[in-house]
């Protein structure tokens, strides 16, 4: 490879590579290192060199064997990630297509509305749903249903028909946040489809459904794959909203705890055990890599990377 080519490659790939190294590789190495230390209470000075071998990993194995919530946490995680991911991707796609066909002014307002959950601070957003799903008559949902005569007594939604009630709240609250991410990506992607394709299809008499099926969806393959993998990994590790709803008692204390939240509450109780948390994070990274690779395979990443044989 010539020197000029290396320089060109370095120029174009350098910034992105530096970002990945700085924001992913370096923190990953640091996390792996911390997972072998007894780091706690943010006391870096004292514990940075306090190597404890596999102690934190052993604690995790112990936790998975003996914690009475472990099984429910795994089941909740699988249900939560699968259903929320489906809603995020399909919902985002549906919204993007809908807004694409709307007049720009209306479309913009509509999209902004859907971005509200993402723009609202986590605590405020969670508080909103805390009051909405509150199990007594101060809960908005209970008040609405009672005023309509649908129910006579307030319902504890988080405990309703366990685990379904809790799962529904978990998925609903997180799904609303996640769906806007897909919507933004898909909408931008649809807008970038050359207008000639759309015009040609229209001239050929394509209706909206045909347009979606034959033009839009094929052009969004990369984006669908990206959103799916990205959201799946996000959902696997998310706990902010779940933690607040869990702490405030909106969701059940057994079926409302995902794996990441279980680890968070174990590692960040009164004693902040960063070593244990880092070990759990490392395990999650490995799980994330494996799941990401499986998703890429299922979504046909290999096929999409194949160089086309030429236009026909």
């Amino acid at each position, binding site marked *: 490879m010539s020197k000029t080519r290396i320089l060109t490659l370095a120029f174009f790939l350098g910034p992105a590579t530096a970002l990945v190294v700085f924001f992913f590789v370096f923190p990953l*190495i640091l996390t*792996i*290192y911390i997972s*072998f230390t*007894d780091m706690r*209470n*943010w*006391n*870096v*000075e*004292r514990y940075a060199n306090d*190597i*404890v*071998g*596999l*102690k934190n990993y*052993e*604690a995790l194995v*112990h*936790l998975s*064997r*003996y*914690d*009475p919530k*472990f099984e429910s946490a795994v089941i909740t995680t699988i249900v939560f990630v699968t259903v929320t991911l489906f809603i995020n991707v399909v919902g985002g796609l549906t919204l993007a297509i809908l807004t694409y066909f709307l007049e720009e002014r209306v479309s913009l307002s509509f999209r902004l509305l859907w971005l509200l959950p993402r723009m609202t601070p986590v605590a405020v957003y969670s508080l909103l749903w805390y009051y909405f799903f*509150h*199990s*007594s008559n*101060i809960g908005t949902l209970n008040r609405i249903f009672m005023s309509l005569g649908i129910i006579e007594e307030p319902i*504890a939604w*988080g*405990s309703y028909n*366990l685990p379904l009630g809790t799962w529904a709240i978990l998925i609903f609250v997180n799904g609303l946040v996640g769906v806007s991410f897909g919507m933004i990506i898909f909408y931008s992607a649809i807008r970038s489809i050359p207008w000639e394709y759309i015009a040609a299809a229209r001239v050929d008499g394509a209706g909206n459904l045909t347009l979606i099926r034959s033009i839009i969806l094929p052009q969004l393959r990369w984006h669908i794959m990206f959103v799916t993998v990205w959201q799946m990994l996000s959902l696997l590790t998310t706990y902010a909203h779940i933690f607040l709803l869990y*702490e*405030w*008692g*909106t969701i*059940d*204390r*057994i079926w409302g705890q995902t794996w990441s939240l279980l680890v968070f*509450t*174990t590692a960040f*109780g*009164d*004693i*902040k*055990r960063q070593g244990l948390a880092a070990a759990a994070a*490392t395990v999650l*990274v*490995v799980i994330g*890599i*494996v799941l990401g*690779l499986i998703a*890429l*395979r299922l979504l046909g*990443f*290999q096929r999409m*990377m*194949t160089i086309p044989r030429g236009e026909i």
Partner: protein
Amino acid sequence: MAQNRQLLLIAVGIVAIIIVIGAIILATRGGEQPAPEEAPETPPAETPREEATPTPREEAPAKPELKPLTGNVEEDIVNIAKYLEAFGVKEVTYKVHGAGDPNSIMRVYGVVEAAARLNKILEENGMDLRINVEIVDFSARADEPAERFQQSFPLRQEADIIAVSFRWIATFAEEGYLLDITEYVNAYKNTELADYFESLWASVTYKGRIYALPQDTEARPLYIIRAVLECAGYDPDDVARRIDAGEITWREIFQIAEDVKEKGCAEWGVLHRKGTAHPDLVQFYYAFGGSFTGPDPEKLYLDVDALYKWLAVEYALARAGLTPENMMEWDWGKQIHPTVVNGNTAFWIGGVWHWTEWQTKKYFTDPQTGELRSLTPEEVKEKFAYSLFPAGEPGLKPVTLSQPFVWMISANAGKFNPNYEELKEAYHRIAFLLIVKANDPDLVAIHSIVSAHIPIRQKAAELMEDPEFLNKLATGNLDMFVSKEVANAFVEIAKKTAHPINIEFLKNTAYMLEYTNITPLHPAYQPLADIFKEAVDFVLKGQMTPEEATEYVLQKIRADPELAAMIEVRGEIPQGWSFP
């Protein structure tokens, strides 16, 4: 195929990196991997302390030495000022962070006032040194100063002085985050600190060393709603008296609550706090004879018998509809306090500070106007009787629980001041004198009155009985006691709360301290309390029976090797015991 192989290679590569890093780290240890339970106990880190008399710099041999503390604030602050001024220091600054209900703002302004008083001494003695105090924040959430302190200490950005619950001492002392003030306290034990209530020193002592000064304390009475009990044919004062005498236990409380509900006098029988089991609900554990201490001072003990009985009471209360199943989810401002002050429950497991909180916050719906308003002191007295937390069973004693707030000093206190490494002993001493002055009898009395907390020293308790003092406080004539800045901060609160009825209440509840329990200063206590909270929630909701919830607590302890090593479980679920 090629792409597949690439993906596989990437995955293998990343996993390999993880394994290599792990192997390198393990190799550096020579293959030794102590089992978690074999890890040696770490003694509390020694707080880095300067010698009492630091060696002056070589280029300034004539500069004075820092004289030992004498126990006299005036003499000591002047000595420190002379020492610092010799090094050219004319101004020192400290940061303070406190938390609590709005009536407890002396948890930061006490230090501001202390600085003003020390500055006055310095001025009168012709010294140039001035002490500034900056308020970092006064947080509504009690644990926020401690959490921020914990996070910012390694970055040396923490507040110099914090007012937080004593329960943080164990964790912070273990990490070396706190200034060990044992020697300072010894110097002042017979002077400024002589009239502190003896029992409170236990709450600031960890492994034989003193890490804080008490700031206030409290008791947790069982409030009895007079109108509700009278409606059901009970004499509330008699009930209170018999609870204190141990004649009425939780079995009788259950029966009274059931009676009240059956007669339609109130919707609920017993309400308690939401969200956490610590500290209010842990009183059940003590009331059933539980203890967290035992022969090994390094261990935290858990009595299964008391735990089970506590959970059995909660389970029975919720099944009978006397306590809401979703109690742990109730909203403080919209549900809990309004239900209590509007008389819709027979009993409320509360704290002394609620007495004035009901006088400053609008929880009560006026029956005439339908508007929300706060209660007057007379109304609070008329509505509530109070007693100790009832004994669990005949033969046991009623209890209460205190969770003293304390002043802690950072091990790096004064770090923002000039030449810190050389002069830190002087800076540490100023921080100590600041908290000593923040606990001046009049300041403690003012704080106790406006926030309905029990004073930590005898002189403050005496001052609270002085009609002249009280009158000045009630009329907002605060300039008599404190600087303008501090007076302005709480004049309105003082006008509302400095009332003879409130003083009488504090006097009447002071006896509760004889029955009080202080939860252990042990790193395992809070994780355990978090597990209790879950167990309480499960039994209230009926998701678990008391047996299952007790077993859940034990399983959670066993699932965490670190916790299991620290906690000694005693006894078993009692056979043939039932409630009510």
